[in-house]
């Protein structure tokens, strides 16, 4: 078994399958456990796992309570489907194609009778992850800072400004109903 805290590179042997399970950033092959990334060794005696604590930046993964940025893919009766684009505060992009969903009960703090009055296809939203291990990832926008941060007019495609109860088109003055975030238009992602 490799000593605790030792720096390992991909392919270094960490232990044997009889003793441990491969934990984070480790893999098992032919009865041995090896490191998959560069980092330090950490043994979890309670779960009998060997983990590698990465020292390099690793591909990001969506976790519970992360604030994420996504675009609305489709709004169905009870569910708004979201394409999760990145995690707020993490520079590195997600490994592509992470789907999320905002349920009608988690779209706003109060009661929502019509989800299409909260989001529209193509909106960029800020959301918090409730349950990352589901497929699609469960999201909520029930907080003032969460919700739509960028929307385009459904008639002329122009940029929209926040207005009371929603957004108003700069070009054609059309108003639409949205769950607008307090972060709308600040461009801080």
């Amino acid at each position, binding site marked *: 078994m490799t000593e605790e805290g030792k*720096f390992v*590179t*991909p*392919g*270094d*042997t960490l232990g044997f399958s009889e003793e441990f399970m491969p934990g984070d*950033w480790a*893999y098992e*092959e032919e009865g041995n456990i*090896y490191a*998959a*990334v*560069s*980092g*330090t060794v950490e043994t979890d005696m309670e779960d009998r796992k060997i983990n590698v604590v*990465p*020292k*390099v*930046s*690793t*591909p990001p993964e969506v976790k519970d309570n992360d604030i994420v940025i996504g675009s609305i893919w489709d709004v169905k009766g009870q569910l708004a489907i979201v394409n999760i684009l990145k995690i707020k505060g993490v520079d*590195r*992009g997600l*490994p*592509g*194609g992470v789907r999320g969903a905002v349920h009608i009960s988690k779209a706003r703090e109060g009661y929502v009778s019509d989800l299409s009055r909260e989001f529209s296809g193509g909106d960029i939203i800020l959301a918090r992850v409730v349950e990352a291990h589901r497929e699609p990832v469960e999201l909520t926008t029930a907080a003032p800072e969460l919700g739509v941060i960028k929307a385009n007019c459904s008639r002329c495609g122009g940029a929209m400004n926040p207005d009371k109860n929603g957004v108003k088109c700069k070009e054609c003055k059309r108003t639409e109903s949205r769950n607008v975030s307090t972060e709308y238009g600040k461009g801080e992602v």
Partner: protein
Amino acid sequence: MKKEGVKLFVDGKRLDGRELDELRPIKMEVGVLKRADGSAYLEWGENKILAACYGPREVHPRHMEEADKAIVRVRYNMAPFSVPDRKRPGPDRRSQEISKVTKEALESVVLTHLYPKTVVDVFIEVLQANAGTRCAGITAASLAMADAGIPMRDLISSCAAGKIDGKVAVDMMGAEDNFGEADLPLAIAPQKKEVTLLQMDGNFTRKEFEEAFNMAMKGCLDVYEIQKQALLKKYEV
């Protein structure tokens, strides 16, 4: 390939004073680029190579994506100023071949099943060339991927051996490559000594081939130690 009238040995030593089984000096550094997810810079003799890695990320064009695993894309490119005569920029037959074999050499160690429908992009830029750039490129690319935290079964180390004036030698430099008789680039996954790239240019006898293979293997293992040191230097606390 043999050209007469060129002396490749002076007083029993090679033109740059090396022994037959001696590598050129190698210098590696990881994490040299800010915008890439992972990067590495390598100096191997007079070769200077920059490698960058992005991903895993969404595949474009979409038809290239695989439903159950990640794909690895490699672009090997030589700068116009990397060789004595200007190299015409852009992909050519040689660089396309090297891109392909490098991709295959690297892909075999990536744990591709962890990131389905994604791509890992690797870019290898040869800034200065003096024989052995495909081996140096693979070595640098593997470091860039390790720096990007791509889960891998192993690093990839690469080194070539060849035949000059009838003698088998490791890691040929420019003049030896041009006037030598054969070249044998090798890339391995060092932990299990799995061969992931083996090419041959010119002719070896069976005995010479084995000698060259073993020499290149030893060279790869030396390169592996330097790769580990480079990662250690950057990331050990």
